[in-house]
């Protein structure tokens, strides 16, 4: 490793250390609620990026997509973020009695919470979380790990086996992501009902995975490490980003409109507290920034093949995934919009760590799955 990259690692770690101090100060000064709420945002963000990439890999095997084979190594590498996030998840279990009303003694007196106590109780929650984490390791082992072995062995049967496990991984993905959505986010307000919430988080997750994959692909592409990748491949990534921007908007609006129309107290209060006061501004920013801006930025054909455009839209979408999570989580624990040094500290703590994890992941294996028998066919893909 060159000295330049050593400096980068050191400065990133330094930034992270500063962030860690800020996070610790948050706990002491601002109290545990704000600390754990910030923690939760970054934990779910890490899960979203990692699982989103894992989903892209499994999806490619499931539908036997050829065009994406030359790009598959990027989501394969980045899906390890879903495993790196494990310590965050385990630590977050300590925050359960701080954040979740059903884990507090007072929750036992709310009838709606008592009704759901068969699902929302601390021991079962911990068991579910551990199962989810174990399933992510299993999924990674099933659909990603062997692909790296294929670089050396060039065994085409590995591709067949990966395709065979893809449906199982997709099922694991669907179940665990829905569990994350319902357990970690939705149950912050256990009285609230929303069947579509799992799909809502899925939309953001897939979009985050796509954005991370696009960024990783462009990182390699701009350094000439993906020979044979053309604008046609980039166009497909751009098309996916565009399509799932619209999907996110569709799901977000569907959830909002049905609850607005129904006007049931156990549903609508959730939106009411997120669209009043300072949260309304944030909700509008979210709708415009998460849907209209990327929609208009990617609608033209040329934009979908422009590396520059794809890069900033991907970064933009990742930023808005964070804003989305902030908007989902923070109103549940505090009445006001609070963006201050604690939030900045957590960004300083986790962004450099995430970049380091991504950097380490991006060094794994070859840049393209050289042992995959469909690689050449994938490189020849044209629109």
């Amino acid at each position, binding site marked *: 490793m060159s000295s330049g990259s050593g400096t980068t690692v050191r400065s990133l770690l330094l930034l992270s250390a500063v962030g860690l101090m800020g996070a610790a100060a948050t706990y002491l000064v601002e109290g545990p609620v704000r600390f754990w709420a910030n923690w939760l945002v970054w934990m779910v963000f890490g899960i979203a990026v990692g699982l989103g990439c894992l989903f892209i890999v499994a999806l490619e095997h499931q539908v036997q997509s050829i065009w994406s084979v030359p790009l598959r190594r990027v989501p394969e590498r980045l899906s390890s973020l879903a495993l790196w996030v494990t310590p965050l998840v385990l630590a977050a279990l300590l925050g359960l009695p701080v954040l979740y009303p059903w884990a507090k003694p007072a929750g036992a007196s709310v009838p709606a919470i008592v009704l759901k106590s068969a699902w929302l109780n601390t021991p079962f929650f911990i068991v579910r979380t551990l199962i989810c984490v174990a399933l992510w390791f299993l999924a990674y082992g099933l659909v990603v790990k062997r692909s790296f072995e294929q670089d050396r062995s060039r065994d085409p049967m590995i591709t067949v086996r990966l395709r065979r496990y893809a449906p199982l991984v997709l099922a694991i993905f669907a179940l665990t992501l829905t569990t994350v959505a319902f357990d970690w986010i939705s149950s912050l307000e256990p009285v609230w009902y929303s069947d579509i919430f799992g799909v809502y988080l899925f939309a953001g997750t897939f979009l985050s995975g796509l954005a991370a994959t696009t960024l990783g692909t462009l990182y390699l592409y701009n350094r000439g490490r993906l020979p044979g990748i053309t604008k046609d491949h980039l166009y497909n990534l751009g098309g996916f980003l565009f399509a799932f921007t619209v999907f996110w908007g569709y799901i977000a*609006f569907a959830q*909002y*409109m049905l609850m*607005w*129309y129904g*006007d049931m107290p156990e549903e609508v209060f959730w939106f009411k507290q997120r669209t009043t006061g300072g949260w309304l501004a944030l909700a509008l920013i979210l709708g415009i920034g998460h849907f209209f801006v990327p929609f208009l930025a990617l*609608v*033209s*054909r040329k934009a979908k093949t422009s590396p520059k455009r794809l890069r900033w839209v991907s970064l933009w979408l990742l930023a808005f995934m964070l804003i989305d999570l902030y908007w989902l989580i923070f109103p549940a624990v505090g009445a006001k919009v609070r963006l201050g040094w604690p939030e900045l500290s957590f960004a300083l703590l986790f962004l450099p760590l995430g970049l380091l994890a991504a950097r380490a992941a991006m060094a794994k294996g070859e840049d393209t799955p050289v042992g995959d028998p469909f690689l050449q066919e994938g490189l020849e893909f*044209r629109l």
Partner: protein
Amino acid sequence: MPEPEAPFGVLGLYPTAQALLEAIPGIKARGFSNLEAYTPFPVHGLEEALGLKKSRLGTLVFIMAALGAVSAFLFEWWTSAVDYPLVIGGKPFNSWQAFVPVMFEVTVLFATFTAGLGMLFLFNKLPFFGSPILGSKAIRETTKDRFGLLIMPVEGVLDVEAASAALLETGGSGVEVLAAPDSAPPGLGWWLKTLSGIAAACVVAGFGTAWAIQIYPTLPPMVHMEVQPRLDAQKADSFFADGHGMQLPPVGTVARGYMPLLAKSPEEAGKELINPLPVTPAVLQKGRDLFNNHCAVCHDRLGTGKPWLTSAYTAKPANLQASTYREAPDGYIYYVISEGKGAMPSYAADLSANDRWAIVDYVRALQRSQHAEPEDVQ
């Protein structure tokens, strides 16, 4: 005698897509810039080689889609908030949330129609039925296994000799000159032929249908329930002596569970009728549900006759808390529910006799609640 027109173009055939792509720069170098290719399948790089400009269709579709969204919103806003405001589910008249699904549909509608029709009529220049390429000898090959290149005139001028030579020199074969299509507007004869053809087709189809129906009358698919013997209300029937399917009840009979209202006015009913229902919590509960479902929309939940809804309209429902109605006997209110009064219609079809009496009891309770006697609070 008009000047001899330039031909539609000179067509040459190439054996492979690659040969076609390689030939195009040579043709262009010879000064022919208005080119069109005919291939059996899409060929990568052909657009760039021919130098086709980016289609403006995408921009057009985007503009029309935006227009669709805006016009749908304006229309919904005008119908629901301006022209005919209706309260739906207690929402404000101008509810953008409710407009979005329709806006979405109209956006898609405008976009697809613009894309489809714009492609056909604006950019493909339809209707144009007689493209000379369809009459060429090469039409079979270009839809099967040959790749055609057409050199078309620039500003109405085409050197046929040079174009043919250019096609042959770049590896083309089967060169043919396609004559320009007849661009003269259709004359009287064409119109006569076309219109009389349509008229003849109508006559033949009409008479043919009429004739076919005589021989094959319309056959309903399944008629078992339709043709079973039964008495139809309001229909003649031979079963009874008077020939009516529907019979009057024998004089003096009353249907089970139905007591006809014999009083002719509310005052008369007030004197004659006695409330048969005892005042029990169950009766009042039933009366409250029925009152809130049927009556409260105009008379308000407290019976004041001033609910928030009617403020938008000109009707003036009765104030049941007024002394007139507090002092009116039970039968009076019962009669009004049964027969209506002023703008109020009869509710006899919706509410059974017991329902109406339960409402009367509940109205009494409402009146008492707003005009409590001293002993009520002791």
